[in-house]
């Protein structure tokens, strides 16, 4: 889901860069430095996630993990994802350097969105928390696919065609991530609930 170098036009890259900068600024301000270890662990998980590859017919897609990054970090997902994407771009050449801002917005904005949508639900009883965390993982990839379609709309022909293609190609990823997020949140609730959002540390 990383956009390569040379695909997007100047204005789109510039807008993406500005939005990513704004999001990162907010994220850094709201970052609890006592919890910086969490942020870096989740950033590393995101960094490695794109290496896990799911074969879908003719194309190949990879895990994104922005759901769990979002629900655990909130706005701090922006700097975490920005750092991980920069390192992926430099070391693995995933995604162009100029498209860094756009790629960050595509992956971090759904993470923050799901944080606001599902944060209160995680605190509830077990069943609601599981469903909410499944939806977090599912919808964060879904929204990321939509945003990918939006950013490509100025280069590709048809927004609906591209979006449908991306959503269908990433559907297995959505399911896998939903299940993964559900298991992670269930585990954390039992073992270490202070790490979850909304708990006062």
């Amino acid at each position, binding site marked *: 889901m990383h956009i*390569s170098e040379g695909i997007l036009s100047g204005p789109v890259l510039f807008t993406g860069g500005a939005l990513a900068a704004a999001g990162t600024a907010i994220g850094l301000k709201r970052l609890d430095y006592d919890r910086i270890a969490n942020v*870096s662990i989740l950033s590393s998980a995101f*960094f*490695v996630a794109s*290496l896990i*590859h799911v074969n879908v017919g003719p194309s*190949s897609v990879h895990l994104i993990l922005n759901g769990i990054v979002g629900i655990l970090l909130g706005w701090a997902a922006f700097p975490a994802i920005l750092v991980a994407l920069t390192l992926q771009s430099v*070391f*693995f050449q*995933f995604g162009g350097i100029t498209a860094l801002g756009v790629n960050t917005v595509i992956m971090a904005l759904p993470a923050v969105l799901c944080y606001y949508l599902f944060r209160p639900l995680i605190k509830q009883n077990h069943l609601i928390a599981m469903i909410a965390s499944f939806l977090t993982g599912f919808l964060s990839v879904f929204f990321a696919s939509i945003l990918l379609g939006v950013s490509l709309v100025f280069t590709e022909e048809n927004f609906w065609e591209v979006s449908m293609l991306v959503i269908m190609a990433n559907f297995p990823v959505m399911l896998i991530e939903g299940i993964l997020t559900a298991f992670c949140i269930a585990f954390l609730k039992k073992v270490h609930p202070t790490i979850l959002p909304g708990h006062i540390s």
Partner: protein
Amino acid sequence: MLRLYRTKTPMNIFLNGELIFRAFLTKGINKMTKFRSKKMSLRIFYTLLFSIVFIGHAYAHKVIVFAWVEGNTVYTESKFSGGKKVKNAPIEVFDAHGKKLLDGQTDESGKFSFKVPQKNEMKIVLLAGMGHRGEWTITRDDFGEEIEENIKNMDSKNNMSTQTSPMIESKAVHKEKNAIPCLTSEEIQMIVEKTLEKQMNPLLTKLNKLLAPNTSPDVSDIFAGIGYILGLMGIGAYFNYRRKKE
């Protein structure tokens, strides 16, 4: 407070160093216990580490197009990093000034070949959909030397020599009648080309394999990236500690 050795013998200096290092270490550990999630983070970290070790087959996500020239044809191969072939994807070829020369499509095995349109620098661009793009530049050096011209020069030289000696024409005719059948220059050229092709083919395949860009990321790159992230965490924690001390 630290109780260091006063007399400055080499042994004492070494022991002092060790005491100072140990003091820093204990301070660091005491600081780290402030992080509530230390145990959890360690668990997640070890799980991550193990999963990296067992990734093995894990693939990555960029698209690569690789091209080489053989004779009059340019061959291209397109893959996703990880080795999966890019099927039925559009390919465009541009010249050094950005003018489009031709376009085509990769076949079921990710390959696409075309006749050389011009012996100059060319850029081959692959669009694999969903925002993936790869490119490869063919330089002047990738093209071989022109062999036909040398042969043409040789032939014209032969014609010249027979034309400028009408007086010894009779001798030449005699020579022709008694001439032993020998190879013409074209036949020699064909034989040499065929032998060269046979000998060079295995070498060229090996060379192309070496030149092809690396598809899957190295484990060393993974560790490098994680190292940088942990380094940033350390810097952030250090400045947080400094700020809190004030």
